[in-house]
């Protein structure tokens, strides 16, 4: 298995998109921190990139990469190798390449220029979101034989988590504004990894003071150690669940 991972990682590290992605993130975060004197404002600006751009690149890139590796996967399947080993190697290869890109592009500048508690949360969230959206991409591309369909599902998934879900939550908030919704809101956040990451980071920044009563409830929950464990567990579930589906489907897939 190590040998296959080695081939995939070498292939990916030479990949122009991975290199471009790393450099783009690096330039972006370095320039954001150099624009203003206050690093916490830099974190806030980076937050939006982490929440929107990182998931988009992760899900689309992994999906296309997996479809482009169809020949490689087919060749490996005719060899004495387990199906699980092959998909796991692909997953490990893509994850390590994109995680490295995010760590170099966002992690290192944040550590150098900021290094605060919120900064560390930002890095953790970026890494988690990368893994989660790679897992979703794997699930989408194993589940569909058609390349354009798989990429379409990926884009829709990203669109749903990044934009539509928040709209739905707002709609519910306004429809039921007469009721206390703080507790249900906590549950609704857990159903979207991007929201989960956003709240975890925002509450580490001073801006959370502006969020009113809901902010106070959130602060009380997510500020506690139980809250931190809850966020990390929920993100882990978000990474494991699509992976598990992808592996189950791949085991039974006709090539």
């Amino acid at each position, binding site marked *: 298995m190590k*040998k*296959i991972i080695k*081939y995939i990682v070498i*292939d990916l590290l030479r990949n122009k998109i991975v290199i471009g992605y790393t450099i783009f993130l690096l330039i972006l975060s370095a320039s954001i921190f150099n624009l203003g004197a206050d690093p916490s404002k830099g974190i806030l600006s980076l937050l939006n990139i982490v929440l929107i751009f990182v998931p988009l690149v992760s899900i689309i890139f992994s999906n296309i990469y997996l479809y482009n*590796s*169809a*020949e*490689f996967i*087919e*060749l*490996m*399947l*005719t*060899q*004495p*190798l*387990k*199906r699980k080993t092959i998909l796991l190697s692909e997953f490990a290869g893509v994850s390590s390449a994109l995680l490295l890109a995010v760590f170099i592009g966002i992690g290192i500048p944040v550590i150098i220029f900021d290094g605060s508690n919120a900064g560390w949360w930002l890095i953790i969230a970026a890494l988690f979101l990368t893994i989660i959206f790679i897992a979703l991409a794997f699930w989408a591309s194993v589940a569909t034989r058609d390349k354009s369909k798989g990429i379409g599902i990926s884009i829709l998934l990203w669109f749903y988590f990044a934009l539509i879900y928040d709209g739905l939550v707002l709609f519910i908030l306004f429809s039921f504004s007469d009721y206390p919704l703080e507790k249900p809101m906590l549950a609704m956040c857990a159903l979207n990894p991007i929201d989960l990451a956003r709240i975890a980071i925002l509450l580490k920044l001073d801006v959370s003071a502006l969020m009113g009563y809901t902010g106070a409830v959130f602060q009380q929950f997510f500020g506690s150690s139980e809250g931190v464990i809850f966020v990390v567990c929920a993100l882990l579930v978000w990474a494991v669940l699509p992976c598990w589906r992808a592996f189950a489907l791949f*085991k*039974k*897939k*006709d*090539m």
Partner: protein
Amino acid sequence: MIHIKNLTKKYGKATALQNINVAFESGESIALIGPNGSGKTTLIKSILGLVIPTEGNIFFNKKSILQEWKYRNEIGYMPQISRFPENMNVHQLLKLMKDVRKDEHNKLDEDLIHAFNIENILNKTMSSLSGGTRQKVSACIAFLFSPQVLILDEPTAGLDPLSNEKLKEKIEKEKQKGKLILITSHVLSDLDDVVSQVVYLQDGKLMFHKTVEELEDFTGEQKLNRMIAGIMNKQFVISN
């Protein structure tokens, strides 16, 4: 060596293979023949574990192959359409295959690599190779690890006459060593000297499984394509 029991494969509503029962033993060299869409490739892919049977089972050396993978150590496979990672060159591809499948028991069989002069194209990327050259590389990989079973899906399609002869010689040589060889081909004249048994598939059903001698007696013909044509004309179905 390979026993197929009640194998049925359905793609949605379409039935690709219907209740196939057949056994292949080592030392045999079998031609899988049938019209387009008769299920030849599905049968081969089922043996390789690329296609998961809807019903039935396949046994390799008496062990079920479902969810198994080690048995593929004994199989060399040459697909109908050779698809390789496009950005690798031939050298890297061969190295990858050796890495994945290094053999403690058998030494590497590089006969075909020499016969096809693959040494001269080691630095070419797979995307720059012609269809025929890809087939050659594919054949080299199938034979490289001296497997006990060779599964060749349309091996001669796209090869030039000289390479075709070289490949047939190689198949003949492996047959002498007592290996099990499974070949599908539409060009029946290519199979004449190589094949000892014929399996005929139609619409996913096994129509007959006979030795070449039996077919000769039955039809009074010498050439394989004449025999098959004769049987098809007479609309005969020989029961197993």
